[in-house]
């Protein structure tokens, strides 16, 4: 446990800005709600005047949804950047020799980096979203008055949806995350090219050899943001009932196993 805590702190020492992406986006959104005319496009027409009173849950739903989406997008960019660099940076600056001189297994190192990218960042993102919802809701209520619909109970439900939605997204994108980490461990330079070229080669190769687009359709379906399919109620399994999600988790496990081997034996000369 002590080792794990240290491995995760280590990542945050190295990348001090890493956990700040979502909070900075949130501050920006909060500033908009405080100083703008409750002003980003998503909520504008609904929040003004009558919409807020006629259909408050729709109005707040739109604002909360917009906030969530922006913070999730920022977080995903941070995740992609981090996972592509996590096992590359230590080889680029040769500090891998120092890290490997200590009794930390390659398995723990790889899994800790995966956990920072695929658990810590999404958790920070989810927490930031929920707090931002609360702050904006408070600010909007103070400004326009609060419709009497049990807003905070509604907020609480939304918070639950944010955390369950985030965990489903994490599972859904686990194979993508581990693929990026593998590219990071493998590439001598430009890990993003190593991440992009093989899937593109498969798509182009299939199209030239067979004239079909099975691979392309699969990748597209798999990368598509499954916003509409997330679980919304306790009884609704959402994405969790999709076998594709669990197949993806299996693929992620295989890719991580390969990544551990690659860190072990890459650059051994």
């Amino acid at each position, binding site marked *: 446990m002590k080792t794990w805590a*240290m*491995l995760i702190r280590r990542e945050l020492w190295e990348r001090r800005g890493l956990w700040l992406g979502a909070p900075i986006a949130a501050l920006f959104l909060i500033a908009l709600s405080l100083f703008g005319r409750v002003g980003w496009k998503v909520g504008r027409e609904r929040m003004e005047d009558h919409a807020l009173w006629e259909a408050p849950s729709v109005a707040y739903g739109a604002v909360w949804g917009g906030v969530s989406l922006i913070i999730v997008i920022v977080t995903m960019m941070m995740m992609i950047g981090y996972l592509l660099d996590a096992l590359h940076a230590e080889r680029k600056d040769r*500090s891998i020799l120092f890290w490997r001189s200590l009794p930390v297994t390659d398995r723990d190192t790889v899994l800790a980096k995966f956990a920072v990218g695929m658990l810590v960042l999404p958790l920070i993102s989810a927490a930031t979203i929920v707090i931002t919802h609360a702050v904006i809701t408070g600010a909007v209520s103070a400004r326009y008055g609060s419709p009497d619909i049990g807003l905070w109970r509604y907020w609480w439900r939304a918070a639950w949806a944010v955390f369950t939605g985030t965990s489903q997204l994490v599972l859904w994108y686990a194979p993508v995350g581990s693929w990026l980490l593998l590219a990071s461990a493998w590439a001598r330079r430009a890990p993003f090219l190593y991440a992009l070229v093989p899937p593109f080669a498969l798509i182009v190769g299939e199209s030239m050899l067979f004239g079909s687009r099975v691979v392309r359709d699969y990748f597209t379906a798999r990368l598509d943001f499954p916003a509409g399919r997330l679980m919304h109620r306790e009884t609704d399994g959402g994405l969790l009932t999709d076998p594709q999600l669990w197949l993806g988790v299996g693929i992620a496990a295989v890719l991580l196993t390969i990544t551990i081997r690659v860190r072990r034996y890459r650059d051994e000369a």
Partner: protein
Amino acid sequence: MSALISARGLRKQYGKHIALDGVSFEIPPGRIVGLIGRNGAGKTTTLKAILGLTPFDGELQVLGVNPSRQRDALMRDVSFIADTAVLPKWLRVRNALDYVEGVHPAFERARAEEFLRGTELRLDSRVRHLSKGMVTQLQLALVLAIKAKLLVLDEPTLGLDLLYRRKFYDTLLNDYMDNQRTILVTTHQVEEIENLLTDVMFIEHGKLLLDSPVDELGERYQQLIANADATQAARALQPFHERSVFGRTVFFYEGADAAQLATLGEVRTPGIADLFVARMQGIA
């Protein structure tokens, strides 16, 4: 377990280049072994094999385990500096101490801090702002504070000034070394560690040229500073190397009769550095 490290027929090939060509040796516990060779002779490859950093052919046991397969277990009892200046630039001295303390059960933070007190390093300095010598000091402070059974040092004092090199070797000898520990060290500055070593190995072209306890070198090798009128006679005894120093000729012999040599001039046990040069150059 008698030998701490035992290697038999160690081989390693990079493409067509043979880095290690059947190296065999045993290192018992409690020794300070110098592995001496030129660049590319196979020193670093040997160390990497011992540390489980590279696959190899042949048999190798370090602390009773195969370093390639059981590397994770091995790293609890072995500490090493593979290369200087591999600490990441963003690391603060304090973070380095925190990290090693967090992951290494045998790390004694107080020792590392005491060692750092004698340097210009501050706890909140970042590696980025340190000179190369200071980075080395930090690395040495970290490894010297780990109670490991085997300490492997590859060119540990590169970039350090003379005063600090002395201090480092003094610390190594007085505070670190006890009969439970073993140190394997490579360096270019052979003269500096000559008096420290208990054993010496020469490596060249992936083969061991010499593997001997230092106190047995005298029985095996002789250095003769020949009298001016005796050079012909000295040469006739088949030295493997000779060179001229201040107008006198110095000959190096392996397994010669010391009494016989004494009639031709002054006989000494060659220093490790001299012996190394002599072995490398052969008969000049």
